[in-house]
């Protein structure tokens, strides 16, 4: 059992939990993830680590309330416990002084990007950060990112704040030479960013979020094609060369259980699991 010591709402339906897990706090590194199981009947879901604090003995992670498990998770409060957490999992990010790094983060993945930006900053990199969301209400961590970045850009899909879409990154790349790009976000966003950086020859790392079950190298559901080869998101990743990923295959594989996921969520809501009394 892992106790939630702090809960924070980052944006509507996006929450950040800080959980007591001293051993994980000692070992967690940027880029890694955990698998959580909410209760004995629960599924195993992967979430990217957004922070660790050895003094407090905690790790933190953000999540978007999209399915039954994450909606249930969102109802938990400080003092409540999560049945099981396994981690840290996956290969840590390669953090060193690259020179100039462009960090692009979207949606809930802005949370772990803050950890990445902090680590890159501490290694002496010059950082330009882009934070994006569908609409301005879903943006968060702008101030925190600003404090750690040399430059900060904001973008939304609808243009309600900052740039509309990510095409402006082309201009940024024309004006300035970058040594590395890190993109964290929805697959479609990472695909876009990779397509933008490729002609400029900027090595681009993406953090993939395929479906996982065990998350530690057993089931193979997280297989992705990178550079024409089969890789396993959980043990070979989760970070890969963004220019080699077969994104369309990944998008298709992420949708594999969509009908079941919707059914599960709907049944739970109908039974009043969401505290709405079944209305």
């Amino acid at each position, binding site marked *: 059992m892992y106790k939630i010591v702090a809960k924070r709402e980052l944006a509507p339906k996006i929450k950040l939990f800080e959980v007591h897990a001293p051993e994980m706090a000692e070992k967690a590194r940027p880029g890694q993830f955990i698998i959580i199981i909410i209760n004995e009947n629960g599924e195993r879901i992967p979430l990217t680590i957004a922070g660790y604090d050895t003094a407090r003995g905690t790790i933190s992670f953000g999540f978007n309330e999209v399915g039954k498990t994450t909606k249930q998770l969102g109802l938990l409060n400080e003092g409540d416990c999560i049945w099981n957490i396994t981690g*840290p999992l996956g290969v840590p990010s390669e953090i060193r002084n690259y020179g100039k790094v462009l960090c692009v983060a979207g949606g809930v993945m802005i949370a772990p990007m803050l950890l990445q930006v902090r680590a890159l900053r501490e290694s002496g990199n010059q950082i330009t950060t882009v934070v994006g969301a569908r609409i301005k209400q879903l943006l968060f961590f702008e101030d925190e990112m600003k404090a750690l970045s040399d430059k900060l850009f904001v973008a939304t899909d609808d243009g309600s704040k900052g740039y509309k879409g990510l095409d402006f990154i082309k201009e940024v790349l024309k004006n300035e030479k970058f040594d590395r790009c890190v993109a964290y976000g929805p697959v479609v966003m990472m695909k876009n960013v990779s397509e933008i950086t490729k002609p400029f020859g900027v090595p681009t790392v993406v953090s993939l979020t395929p479906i996982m*079950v065990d998350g*530690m190298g057993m089931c193979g*559901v997280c297989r992705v*094609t990178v550079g024409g080869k089969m890789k396993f998101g959980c043990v070979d990743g989760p970070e890969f060369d963004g220019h080699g990923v077969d994104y369309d*295959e990944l998008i*298709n594989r992420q949708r*594999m259980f969509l009908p079941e996921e919707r059914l599960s969520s709907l049944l739970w809501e109908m039974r009043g699991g969401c505290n709405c009394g079944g209305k």
Partner: protein
Amino acid sequence: MAESKPRPKPKKEAVKMPKQDAKIRSQNFNEVALGYTEEQALEEASRCLQCPKPQCVAGCPVGIAIPDFIKLLKEGKYEEAAQKLKEKNALPAVCGRVCPQEEQCQKSCIMSKMGEPVSIGRLERWLADWERKKGVKTPEKTPPTGKKVAIVGAGPAGLTVAAELAKLGHEVVIFEALHLAGGVLVYGIPEFRLPKSIVQAEVDYIKKLGADLRLGYLVGRIHTIPELLRTGFNAVFIGTGAGLPAFMNVPGENLGGIYSANEFLIRVNLMKSYAFPIYDTPIRIGKHVVVIGGGNVAMDSARSALRLGAEEVCIVYRRSREELPAREEEIENAEEEGIVCKFLAAPIKFIGDEKGWVKAMECICMELGPPDESGRRKPTPCKGSEFTMDTDTVIVAIGRTPNPIIQSTTEGLQVTKWGTIVADENGKTSIEGVYAGGDIVTGEATVISAMGAGKRAAKAIHEYLMKK
């Protein structure tokens, strides 16, 4: 002088195992084999000739004193018989169910020359079940030795090492990466062949022996093996088992509806997706299921798919029936349940629908040439023999490769080119105080061979600890 009474000749045939009817059992996940009654167990036990030089013991990877436990059983001394079993085997209820006895202890039983061998496995199972129902006695604790051992992985190898070392008075901590202990016994072997409550009871027994069990703890990512050795453990045993699934490297393998057997079985067994949505992990089974491969894992997958409601399940194997690596008993069970086999064929391509879901599989026919390195006849494709099968669910059961996490985080640990850990017959690795056994050393093998390796490693670890 009165003639001594002639001993009744033992029956040629073994007492048959009562089973659930094939039609009924293919609709449920309850155990297929129902187990002997007491009368049946006594009758079968009476078939044992108590050979002065028993061949069966030599065939048992953990060296159970088979004639001795059968004799005690026959005399009605069940408690003593169960203890005799447990002297050598900490998991008798599991072994009685899933060991390939026909290739081990029963293979060289003298009775097989006259008819059928004594059903040693069924007797083992009956005794273990009798003991569990009655309530397992906790063995007396040995005085502590003050030595501490870390066991990585709570599968058959790790549990065996834990039991052996705990009995000898060592402090044992088992680190299991999954949220349940048992390894392949909980994530791999289906409920209908090995009920999970039985695995749990055996795990509880090992805990009663004094072993500490830590779940959801991935060694290599939390503490590495060198760190465990630095922080108070005097020895480490690695029993991390088979890992990543192998694929065929043919086009379309990543379409929706194509599972590795590991994924399929983990969802169904460990995550209980047969009870979705009561359990949150989903599984989708179509109407026409194809399983690729011919081992026990393929049989388990095929029979699980049938129970999950598939209309038709077909096993596609590239060799012929004679070469099937699965246990004969399981092949027969699968056939009785209505699973069909397509021999001498292998997939060359998967075709998807507009939604990226598999809808067909292109195969090629094979013919068998002379034996290859594995000793089995080598299949070669026949030109121009391609054919297409409609399918909406494919389960790939062609083997697994070792999990890389321990190997990549343990400096100085010698690894083979296949990624398995190099260890001698006693499990000794290239690092002092670090032992390994089971599938992580041998590549994919059986539960009992992993237990045998655990047994030998436990002996070597004990000797190592006591010398230190």
